[in-house]
């Protein structure tokens, strides 16, 4: 029978907090390294945020159940942006649960796949065990919990970015409801609704209320910019209200304004906005005002142990290996790993806010902790004539570098004993850490959102950047790319 309360309080090498996709993936990855760790969660079942969100039940990232490559392979992960990474029966679980009524999974399907993952990957969790405090102890930490104290050398917080966040600059915010308190769409029948925020959560609500509300106003300081669509955090599938507005549809407005006040007015709530892309002030009377202003990580007392934050104090600032920049030993997984910015070439951010990206971050994190614990990474030897074919394969279809563009890279090192496969490495670490001669291959996106392959060569401590041309169907494995790589890696292979 399954042990319902594994991991009693005590000493562990690593303690993982959280049982959402980030916590489950981290535990699976640590287990593959054979690292002794505990997983604790205040919830009573796996799933994390997917037990509740998105509110209107549809995800935004795709899974293609019938892809040209076999389910369960590494190459299939590129077609399936929602499954966690597992071996055997724990691999590629989301398509198993999709009824295909949409091209994306529903929230309950995603939750079911995560429950199945925990079971099939053998991820055990001490549920109903709430992390309540943190303190340093020796060269590690003590996590205080509702069940007692856990001592560990490294702590990994996969606690989501789930706490309501309202900018302090919105006066009268208490008259509005936060996104998490949004009611079923039908409850807004015939209402005038003002939604503050133009991120996905704001448009998700607006889209769901389209058939019900009498009037919808979406307002925030930042204009909707979808001219370079792949670099916009906004997903088209929620943008129906925006389309209706720009086509001149009545009763539906998308306004660029900073909120000057939210106040009571004749039994309604009035939202006052100062234009940011137009001069002047507008006032909207509403029956309901919804704050889709986003979330912050529930860091509890972590700032007190020195964890520095970023993105307006909403998430911890992280190293390329997802460790706090200011408090070594404290790591973060799941969507909090967005606090690791990467090289941000052309301002492009990694996909760390969603499962498709952070599942790989968790693997990188586990590998890094393993090294810190003295475990040796396998670095298979490569013959010289294997280098270019390996890089071409990676540039063609490696899911890690296609999803985490300009953030993760496939690395091959060269030293006296020849070439070695260094695996998947954070590109920022490769660029800045120095070390033996090496080459890193990744996929990038230019300011016009054109996707192209890039190779970085480190020789004598200096980095050379080689951007290769784009291709209309991204076929980066062909003879032309082989010639390019042969040419650009000639000096690296010769020296």
């Amino acid at each position: 029978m399954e042990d319902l309360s594994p991991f009693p309080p005590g000493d562990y090498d690593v303690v993982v907090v959280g049982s959402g996709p980030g916590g489950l993936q981290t535990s699976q990855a640590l287990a593959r390294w054979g690292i002794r760790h505990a997983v604790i969660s205040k919830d009573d079942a796996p799933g994390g945020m997917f037990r509740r969100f998105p509110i209107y039940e549809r995800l935004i990232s795709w899974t293609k159940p019938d892809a040209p490559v076999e389910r369960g392979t590494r190459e299939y992960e590129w077609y399936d942006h929602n499954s966690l990474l597992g071996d055997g029966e724990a691999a590629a679980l989301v398509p198993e649960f999709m009824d295909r009524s949409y091209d994306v999974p529903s929230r309950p399907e995603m939750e079911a796949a995560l429950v199945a993952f925990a079971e099939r990957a053998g991820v055990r969790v001490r549920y109903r065990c709430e992390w309540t405090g943190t303190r340093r102890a020796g060269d590690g930490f003590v996590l205080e919990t509702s069940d007692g104290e856990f001592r560990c050398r490294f702590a990994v917080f996969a606690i989501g970015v789930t706490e309501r966040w309202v900018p302090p600059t919105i006066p009268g915010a208490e008259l509005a409801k936060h996104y998490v308190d949004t009611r079923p769409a039908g409850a807004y029948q015939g209402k005038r609704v003002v939604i503050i925020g133009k991120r996905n959560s704001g448009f998700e609500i607006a889209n769901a209320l389209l058939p019900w509300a009498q009037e919808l106003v979406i307002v925030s300081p930042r204009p909707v910019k979808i001219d370079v669509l792949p670099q916009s955090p906004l997903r088209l599938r929620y943008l129906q209200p925006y389309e209706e507005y720009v086509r001149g549809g009545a009763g539906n407005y998308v306004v660029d304004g900073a909120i000057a006040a939210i106040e009571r007015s004749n039994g309604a709530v009035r939202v006052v906005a100062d234009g940011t892309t137009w001069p002047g002030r507008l006032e909207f009377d509403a029956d309901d005002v919804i704050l889709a202003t986003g979330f912050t990580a529930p860091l509890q007392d972590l700032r007190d142990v020195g964890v520095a934050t970023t993105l307006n104090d909403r998430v911890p600032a992280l190293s390329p290996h997802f460790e706090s920049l200011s408090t070594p030993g404290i790591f973060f997984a799941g969507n909090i790993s967005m606090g690791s910015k990467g090289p941000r070439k052309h301002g492009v951010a990694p996909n760390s806010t969603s499962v498709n990206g952070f599942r790989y971050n968790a693997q990188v994190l586990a590998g890094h902790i393993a090294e810190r614990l003295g475990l040796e990474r396998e670095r298979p030897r490569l013959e010289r004539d294997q280098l270019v074919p390996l890089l071409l394969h990676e540039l063609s279809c490696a899911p890690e570098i296609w999803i985490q563009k300009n953030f993760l890279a496939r690395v091959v090192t060269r030293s006296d004993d020849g070439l070695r496969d260094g695996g998947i490495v954070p590109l920022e670490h490769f660029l800045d850490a120095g070390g033996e001669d090496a080459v890193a291959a990744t996929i990038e996106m230019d300011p016009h959102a054109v996707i192209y392959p890039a190779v970085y060569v480190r020789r004598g401590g200096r980095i050379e950047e080689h951007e290769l041309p784009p291709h209309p169907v991204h076929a980066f494995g062909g003879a032309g790319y082989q010639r390019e790589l042969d040419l650009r890696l000639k000096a690296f292979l010769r020296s």
Partner: protein
Amino acid sequence: MPERPDIVESLSRLALFADLSHAQIESIAHRFDEAVFAEGERVLRTGLSGGAMYVIIEGEAVVRIEGTERAWFGAGEFFGEIGVLLDELPNADVEAKTLLRCLEIPGAQVEPFLVEFPRIMFRMLQAEARRLRITTEWKT
């Protein structure tokens, strides 16, 4: 650790944004990301493309050429603009000298940003003039 001031408040304290309305500063804070760097972490890398312009909100940065420290920047100052404006690769590394907090304006967005906010462009020009004066004084 005391609670950090909101980013809009932090930006409104900087000379570069002194002529802007609160709504305009809010729109800038919503449009561009904050980037935080650990002490010693590289912000710009010699010879690598795709850089940005950075406005320092908190902390210090150092310009390093061939390992030698050549210039320093503090809160309210900006860097990375030369490579972006001239479309050239950085000829130096810029590193965080302390924990460094910046507003990051990606290269391709610098021109539309400055055209949209000419008062920021004017303030930048003033700062560039001061830098040029120091360089000229040093040379004479």
